[in-house]
């Protein structure tokens, strides 16, 4: 075998095209401000940059006081849900070039939860309603062979869609019913209830259905489809809620 021969000289990478994007952020510092206000920043971006990169650039190079949550930065942890041009998106999954960069990009904290600072909200009410649906396997019986609770691929596929939830709150904070009096569970809690209600190994589905049959349970859902549009994992949230409604009416199927 002959030695590998370099046929072409390595191409010098061309200058990477950049563009300037204007971001208008809704700022709020509880120590200084009485009211939130909008502040704009210009950042030089590349086609591969996401909204999160723009926020990093602002925080690291322009204004260190900017506060936002992010952990994994790759769409898995669900920390950086925010309202980008009026739609709830993960900052780490939204490419700047996919937005209309001829206009400023408006970024604010997700709605319906208490604002703490800049893009950070208090997630407690969201997590409280998540906890309220018992989001854990409830099984009283001992498994057949004493070790595992077995499940067929078909049984697993029944609730596969709702296992993808990362609890980013993009769906719940996009729901107009959740914005009103704060008594509604919100889509995320119902999605996580759905994940266990339709799990063949679980024995507590009736408990969850009773919780969601409450006055402020699934019946407050108006099928606005904001949640399905907002979900960064592509979960069919409104469909899951409809299935829970059917399960309450007709029993689990």
């Amino acid at each position: 075998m002959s030695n590998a021969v370099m046929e072409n000289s390595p191409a010098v990478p061309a200058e990477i095209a950049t563009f300037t994007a204007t971001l208008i952020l809704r700022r709020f510092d509880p120590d200084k401000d009485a009211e939130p206000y909008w502040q704009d920043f210009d950042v030089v971006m590349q086609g591969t940059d996401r909204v999160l990169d723009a926020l990093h650039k602002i925080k690291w190079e322009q204004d260190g006081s900017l506060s936002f949550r992010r952990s994994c930065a790759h769409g898995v942890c669900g920390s950086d849900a925010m309202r980008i041009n009026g739609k709830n998106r993960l900052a780490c999954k939204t490419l700047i070039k996919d937005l209309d960069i001829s206009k400023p990009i408006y970024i604010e904290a997700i709605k319906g939860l208490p604002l703490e600072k800049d893009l950070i909200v208090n997630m407690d009410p969201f997590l409280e309603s998540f906890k309220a649906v018992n989001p854990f396997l409830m099984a009283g019986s001992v498994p057949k062979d004493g070790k595992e609770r077995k499940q067929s691929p078909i049984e697993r596929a029944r609730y596969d869609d709702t296992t993808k939830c990362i609890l980013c709150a993009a769906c719940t904070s996009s729901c107009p019913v959740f914005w009103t009096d704060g008594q509604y569970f919100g889509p995320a809690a119902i999605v996580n209830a759905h994940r266990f209600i339709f799990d063949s190994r679980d024995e507590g589905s009736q408990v969850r259905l009773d919780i969601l049959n409450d006055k402020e349970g699934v019946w407050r859902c108006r099928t606005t489809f904001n949640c399905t549009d907002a979900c960064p994992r592509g979960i069919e949230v409104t469909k899951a809620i409809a299935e829970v409604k059917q399960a309450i009416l007709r029993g689990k199927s």
Partner: protein
Amino acid sequence: MSTIEAPRSPLKPARRRRGINVEKWGWIYMRASGVVLVVLIFGHLFVNLVAGAGVKAIDFAFVAGKLADPFWVVWDTLLLWLALLHGANGMRTIVNDYANNRMVRRLMLGAIALSTIALITLGTLVIYTFDPCPAGSPANLLPSFCPVR
């Protein structure tokens, strides 16, 4: 340190309640009555506006003739009750979604309930007590098809 007022506070845990679940039955009613109303409304529109002589046929005698037929009495009663309750329940959910102030919400829900009850009562009264030729009326006020007394 100032904080923005929490829109979801105070937090209340989900309550378990006994008895009928108004929200659930309201939800079911909206779907069930919706299906029936599609038939009732389009049937009503077709008979009044398209069938026979079309829209030109509508006059006092046409309405009197329809209300003399038990079939249309039942049809109109169903249409009246289902549509008004369907509309009122829709308005109730909108008020529940958007009226944050307790007093305002109560007032609006009360107004919806009152107007619905008034309209249903009046409408039902008209359907069942309608008489195109009331006895003892002067002849010049009666429609032409009334028997001459």
